[in-house]
């Protein structure tokens, strides 16, 4: 077995096991920490896919910002009754049937998906021999995708204003 397969299987197994444990764990703190393990391994999956820039972005934004936000909210909302309540039985059968059926059909037809080859040339081709991956992303992001980049900035600004608007204390009038 070659090295890339070995590394891929390690990353995939750790990701799947930690995700399953996160979905099934009773304590939300454990859920967030297991998803943190999954996201760090996923950053290295992006590294095996040839993008060092996206690895850094994934580690900084997801592991550094989003999951810390989740942890803050979990600590803010004190959930003592979670451990006593039986929360798993209720909708288990229906969602598990949906999960199994979709997984079966997806893995059965995976060969067809893999065998599909693109018949059109690459829209924005890159060449790692010439320049690094970060150079290519920056070049296309600031030329072809400039408008979308600006719109993304506006969306983040609206999200910040929306959070401040939602969380503010409402003063009772009259």
């Amino acid at each position, binding site marked *: 077995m070659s090295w890339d397969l070995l590394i891929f299987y390690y990353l995939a197994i750790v990701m799947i096991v930690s995700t399953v444990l*996160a979905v099934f764990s009773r304590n939300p703190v454990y859920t967030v920490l297991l998803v943190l393990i*999954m996201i760090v391994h996923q950053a290295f999956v992006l590294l095996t896919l040839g993008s060092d820039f*996206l690895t850094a972005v994934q580690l900084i934004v997801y592991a550094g910002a*989003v999951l810390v936000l989740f942890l803050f909210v979990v600590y803010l909302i004190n959930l003592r009754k979670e451990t006593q309540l039986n929360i798993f039985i209720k909708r288990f059968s229906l969602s598990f049937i949906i999960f199994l059926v979709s997984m079966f059909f997806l893995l059965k037809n995976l060969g067809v998906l893999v065998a599909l080859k693109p018949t059109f040339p690459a829209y924005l081709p890159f060449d790692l021999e010439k320049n690094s991956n970060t150079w290519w992303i920056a070049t296309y992001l600031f030329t072809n995708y400039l408008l979308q980049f600006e719109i993304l900035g506006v*969306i983040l600004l609206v999200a910040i204003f929306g959070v401040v608007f939602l969380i503010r204390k409402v003063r009772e009038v009259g």
Partner: protein
Amino acid sequence: MLTQGHYLALSSILFLIGLFGLLFRRNLIVILVSIEIMLNAIIILFASISYYTKDTSGYIVVFFIIAMAAAEAAIGLSLVVLIYRKLRRIYSDEITFFKG
């Protein structure tokens, strides 16, 4: 030999685990975390397509997805805090605000 099929299988399995968690958990925070798991599966899908077809646009879509996920998590968690402050409960079948 590592092919695109490996990445597709990993991405689809993670997406279905996230969908499963979204359907059967009742805690609102865990539902939001399941949405994050599904977004991460889509990130793997786009990055693998981009790597195997030598096309940069998939990486740029991944960049956009990460930024959108940050905005979505902020808005969703503020809604969760708001619901908890108003109703003092966080399980999705106990929130019957609009039923009266």
